[in-house]
């Protein structure tokens, strides 16, 4: 597998095909004398911003903390949970309980459900 071509930026879905996000980052486990292994894939704004510019990422973090954000870290999914990597990266993590969708569920409960006809 070519990591950049076959994994990075791919759609991540749960076993039922529900989207969790895209592979924003890949964390490798590098041990001397061993072949590097994928440890985690990451989904989150900080990882994405860090790819554009680490400075932008630091600036976003400090601004978000100032506005009272608590859990800023990107969501890491252990590579051992990856089931397949064909068109999408299928992971063994239920979308209904995934921290990757915390903001989606917050918006649903606090905004969309308050709009008639939702």
């Amino acid at each position, binding site marked *: 597998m070519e990591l950049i071509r076959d994994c990075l*930026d791919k*759609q991540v879905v749960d076993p039922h095909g529900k*989207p969790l*996000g*895209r592979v924003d980052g890949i964390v490798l486990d590098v041990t001397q004398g061993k072949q590097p292994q994928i440890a985690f894939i990451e989904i989150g704004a900080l990882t994405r911003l860090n*790819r554009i510019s680490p400075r932008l990422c630091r600036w976003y973090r400090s601004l978000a903390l100032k506005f009272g954000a608590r859990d800023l870290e990107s969501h890491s999914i252990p590579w051992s949970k990856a089931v397949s990597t064909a068109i999408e990266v299928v992971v063994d993590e239920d979308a209904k309980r995934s921290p990757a969708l915390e903001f989606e569920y917050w*918006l649903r409960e606090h905004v969309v459900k308050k709009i008639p006809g939702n």
Partner: protein
Amino acid sequence: MKKLLEISLGIVTSVGGFLEIGSITTAAQAGSTFGYKLLWAVALGGLCIIFLVEQNGRLSAVSGHTLPGAIRERFGYNYFVFMFVILGIVSLLVLGAEIGGVCIALELATGVRLQWWAIPVGVLSWLVIWKGTFSVIEKGTSLLGLVSVSFVVGAIVMHPNWSSVLRGLVPSGQSQNAAHYWFVAVSILGASISPYLYFFYSSGAVEDKWDESYLGTNRIIATIGMSFGSLISMSVLVLAFLVLAPRGLHADDYHDLALLLQDAFGHWGFILAVASIGICSLGAALEITLELAYLTAQGWGWNWSENVRPRDEARFSLTYTVVLLLGTLLVLVGINPLQLTVFSMALTAATLPVSIVPFIFLMNDRHYVGKNPNGIFSNIVVLSIIGLASVLAIVTIPLQLFGSK
């Protein structure tokens, strides 16, 4: 039989959904100022959009990927964000122009100033998207948009000099007022080769669950649908020459657009022209709103579909809500919709390379298109479109400064 019905419906959808305030305005300005001389630009734009739409449909049918998703995967997050920002700004301006187009039609029909219509039009558009499904939005507005075929009938009824019309299909220069001539040519191309059209088409192919068995359908819909769509734009240009030019009008005021069918059909002509402007602009406004929400959701990997309830895709539904709010604001603050239209069409032309360059890579990448990559001919066409788009990107800003009225 089912396939035949799908093909017919697809063609009708493409024809009815082709015209919008941008193509009407730019074609009318071209015809009223330069006669048939710019027909080639409409034809060239039509030809380009046929190829781009066909390739987008093929990409989505074979790979199951939409264009934004494939661009992020193949070109990475940074390129995607770059494209997103540029397309986002241009599409928002075009959305403002389309909402303005609906408001223009309502002002022409009722006499109530267009700014008063901005909020009702914004709310109506939002309600249609919030409550409607993909096919209601796509097919409903397109079927109603078939009223724009009246421009073709109108042009035939007016008995244009067909040999002059045919001569207009051959590109020619212009010695007098050359900067304005080329500016209008660029605006026509920007209105014809609209990224929202092929981005929306690509999402539609996934929404409608196309697979490889749809490749023939896709080719027929793209070719026939977009050809007939271009024919409507050409008819507007012909009518503008025959109706507006003799009156000394140049379609720089939206009241001029209501006259396009007057000589052909009398009072009915006014009603048909206003209905066409209103319905087609509304259809385009809905498509652009959805296109922006699709682009965002697909790029970031959210839930997206116009076929599920808003609560099941909170980020997607709030994105189109905010997009519509911003588009409506552009009309509400009093920007002249016609000036916004011409400006946004030229800007569309200038930014085309950003969304077209990825095509040549994706359409030759067997990870996406499997056994159906571009042939040599299609690749030459896409490379030519990229060349054309690059020239447009370079010349648009000087033309905007010196050639716009």
